[in-house]
């Protein structure tokens, strides 16, 4: 049975509310992206438009550094794909939990899918069992992230025109501390811990592979390590 309008609103607002800490964490990162976009030589309009049509913080960050280095557009687009390839795995994880939804829903939910909303949804979906509850919950999280990212970008653009050398502020650490805060609660047992250690070690050793492909390699080896570890130490919760 489809949810009533008040149910929809309730799930939508819960999704936005559960995303709040991540909105705070995205601010410094959005600020520095906006400032670096200007510093890279992009116009203010293109810097702002990238946040609206690409909406992928770490890829945008890398792209403006490539723009500053005079990298060809095709190479930047391919790099964007590789850096964002982890979203394929996120989409594959969420898809079975959104069974029966129309493309009209799935396409925008996919467009707005980020690391942050994925992690919020992975947890929030446990308490919401129907695709209809879940779609409103995920939409609430995604739109909150999207609006927040646009505003942070605009402020960063304004600041970037006023303040020299934005890269020296160290605000990119906001991404690290946000991801750490999402990561630690996921470490529920040995398989998860081993998966993370293998992924981190691989990322460190493979950092010089071309086109940031070390990230994908690290993800794949981390997943395999977790699956192998499960054979020795069964997972604490059902698959």
């Amino acid at each position, binding site marked *: 049975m489809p949810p009533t309008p008040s149910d929809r609103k309730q799930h939508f607002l819960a999704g936005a509310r559960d995303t709040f800490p991540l909105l705070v964490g995205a601010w410094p990162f959005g600020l520095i992206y906006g400032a670096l976009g200007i510093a890279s030589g992009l116009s203010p309009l293109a810097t702002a438009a990238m946040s609206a049509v690409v909406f992928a913080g770490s890829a945008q960050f890398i792209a403006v550094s490539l723009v500053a280095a005079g990298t060809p557009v095709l190479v930047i687009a391919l790099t964007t*794909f590789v850096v964002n390839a982890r979203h394929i795995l996120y989409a594959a994880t969420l898809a079975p939990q959104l069974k029966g939804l129309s493309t009209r829903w799935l396409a925008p939910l996919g467009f707005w899918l980020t690391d942050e909303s994925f992690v919020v949804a992975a947890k929030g979906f446990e308490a919401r069992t129907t695709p209809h509850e879940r779609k409103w919950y995920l939409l609430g999280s995604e739109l909150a992230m999207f609006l927040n990212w646009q505003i942070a970008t605009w402020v960063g653009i304004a600041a970037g025109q006023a303040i020299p050398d934005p890269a020296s502020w160290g605000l990119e650490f906001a991404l690290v501390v946000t991801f750490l805060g999402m990561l630690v609660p996921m470490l529920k047992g040995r398989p998860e811990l081993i998966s993370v250690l293998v992924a981190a070690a691989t990322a460190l050793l493979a950092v010089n592979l071309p086109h940031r492909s070390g990230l994908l390699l690290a993800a794949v080896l981390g997943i395999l390590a977790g699956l192998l570890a499960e054979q020795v130490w069964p997972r604490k919760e059902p*698959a």
Partner: protein
Amino acid sequence: MNEFWLLFGMAVATMATRIPVLITLSRRELPSGVRRGLHYVPPAVLAAIIAPIVLLDEGKPYLALDNAMLVASLIAVLISWRTKNLLLTIVVGMAAFLAWRALF
């Protein structure tokens, strides 16, 4: 730099990673082995993004007390582990980073 094609290329590349799989895999069952593997995607990916930023400096290991990112990351992990409070982890972690960097 043609800004239109830059944005177009990046938008298409990003959407290609987010939309098609979400649509196709919502219409069929995944094998259980694949589903078990997907459980490890978020922690493995997040760790792989963070580790080089924190532990390397221009491609070289940077394990020292004046590495403000390393010190603040350890503090953030401790707070997250003890409290599970995301907002507290972000705010205190960021403050620790800025303070440590100002000191060294």
